[in-house]
């Protein structure tokens, strides 16, 4: 006993700080205030300040006045194009996201890694380059232009040019979200359903689809937000012809060029409000997904 007591390391010494409970979770108030202040200041400088500036500016013009500028043929046609593109994005990416995610995760075939990498590429390059690439392919003097002229199809500077550009830039969102979920889930549940006598279609509708539902919705909403905000690709491929291929974003750009600031701010406000709405739904979905994942993974972790 007395030998143990003689060991210096076991004796409380001045170098070991007394432990307080609150020390574990709460740092010194000074650090907390400085760091929080730094973050809030940064957010204010980069994001909140500019956002409030837009709102104040529009409030000065009058929200009604700014929005009333949008009740005019060009603005309404631009909005119509944007809404059509939004709907096309929703449908196409809904289908491609579900099927593409499943194919890329659950199928094994040569070139799978390449296809998967290609699918991420639109996130990594400039929309202007995406527009340019299509222009060189199907535009005037492009590689496929003799063929397109022969069958009398015009894509560039028409609505279909806008569709191509938008589908390209929104390709990755839903496929990626669905892939992540499928990779995490594996095929255990499908195998169990089959063993219990479910038909392949029953398994698909009752097991696979419900599992990817939230991720698919999340990805499709991200794609929709992107399609609404896309500018570079639709400017290059559509040419922003007023009343024909102008979208909401190119309308803002052209209004600024023409010094028609009220209309530009009105449209900016409309887009900002709409995208905030999308973001609100996205945040809700994210929380729901986190909850279902916890439910799915929580117990298995404990038994493991």
């Amino acid at each position, binding site marked *: 006993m007395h030998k143990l007591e003689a060991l210096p390391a076991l004796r409380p010494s001045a170098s070991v700080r007394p432990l307080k409970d609150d020390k574990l979770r709460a740092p010194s108030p000074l650090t907390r205030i400085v760091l929080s202040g730094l*973050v809030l200041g940064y957010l204010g400088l*980069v994001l909140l*300040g500019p956002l409030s*500036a837009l709102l104040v500016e529009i409030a000065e013009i009058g929200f009604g006045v700014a929005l009333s500028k949008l009740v005019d043929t060009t603005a309404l046609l631009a909005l119509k194009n944007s809404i059509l593109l939004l709907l096309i994005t929703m449908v196409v990416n809904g289908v*491609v996201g579900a099927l593409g995610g499943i194919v890329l995760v*659950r199928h094994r075939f040569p070139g799978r890694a390449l*296809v998967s990498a290609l699918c991420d590429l639109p996130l990594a390059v400039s*929309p*202007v380059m995406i527009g340019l690439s299509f222009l060189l392919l199907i535009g005037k003097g492009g590689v496929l232009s003799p063929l397109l002229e022969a069958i009398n199809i015009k894509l560039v500077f028409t609505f279909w040019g806008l569709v191509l550009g938008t589908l*390209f830039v929104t390709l990755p969102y839903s496929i990626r979200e669905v892939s992540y979920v499928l990779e995490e889930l594996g095929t255990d549940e499908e195998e169990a359903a089959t063993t219990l006598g479910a038909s392949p279609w029953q398994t698909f509708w009752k097991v696979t689809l419900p599992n990817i539902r939230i991720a698919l919705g999340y990805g499709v909403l991200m794609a929709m937000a992107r399609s609404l905000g896309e500018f570079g690709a639709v400017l290059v491929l559509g040419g922003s012809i007023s009343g024909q291929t102008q979208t909401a974003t190119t309308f803002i750009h052209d209004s600024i060029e023409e010094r028609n600031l009220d209309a530009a701010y009105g449209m900016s406000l409309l887009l900002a409000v709409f995208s905030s709405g999308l973001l609100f739904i996205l945040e809700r979905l994210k929380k729901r997904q986190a909850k279902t994942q916890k439910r799915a993974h929580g117990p298995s972790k404990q038994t493991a």
Partner: protein
Amino acid sequence: MKPVGFALLPGPGELWVRRGIVSYIGLLVLVPFSVLVFVAFQDGLGAFWERITSDVALSAVGLTLWTGLLVGVLNAFFGTLTAWVLFRYPLPLKPLVSAVVDLPLSIPTLVAGVMLSILYGPASLLGQKFSALGIDIIFAKPGIILALLLVTLPFVVRAVEPVLEEVDPAEEEAAVVLGASPWRAFRTVYFPAIYPAVISGSLRSLGRAMGEFGSIVIVAGNIPQETLTAPVYIFGEIESGHPATAASVGSLLLFIALALHGIARIAEKRVGGRHAQA
């Protein structure tokens, strides 16, 4: 016909779905980019080299690279800090702040540019104060950097946040019990866990910054050899009927983007996950 993905050994119906998906992605992505690279090198390597080394092109690519790198580094710092503060400290209106961080994901970048030029533009109160000090923000380089910071704001934060939540708090408690200072506890417990996410998020913001167009067009002023970035230069060359020049500079950016993308994927694999998308 069996539904897609039901079995690991696909039936004939599933094979057709697979072919459809693969050709959709191929036609939409691979074919146009192959044409871009083809046009860039059509007239030989010499012509390509000449086009990317003209004074205007070089300064545009240079500007895009250094602003992108700066934004990547700033994001690594402020993004990690933001994630940490959101993760750890009680903040007033925290859910709101957290949602605001995601806002640039959904707000059109053109609108982001409009916001910045209202706040910092030459006609605004702040803009006038700064220009009295001899600093121009809008139509100058600081405007470009602010715009890039705005559109890339969520990348590092959203990459780091989930990783912080996965760290076992017992490890930090152990460090503190053993006498580590809070800074040392962060450095030795949290930092090793989050640094791949920081790198991947900041590479993604660099990639995004290098391609940014909508907000830059509004705030930069696009003066050749001053505030003309590479994407805006490419757009100008398309408009003025020089598709080969546009394709050459575009291919150069494409190669840089591919390299960055590869590095980001490796970093992401090390964190084992997701969350770091544009």
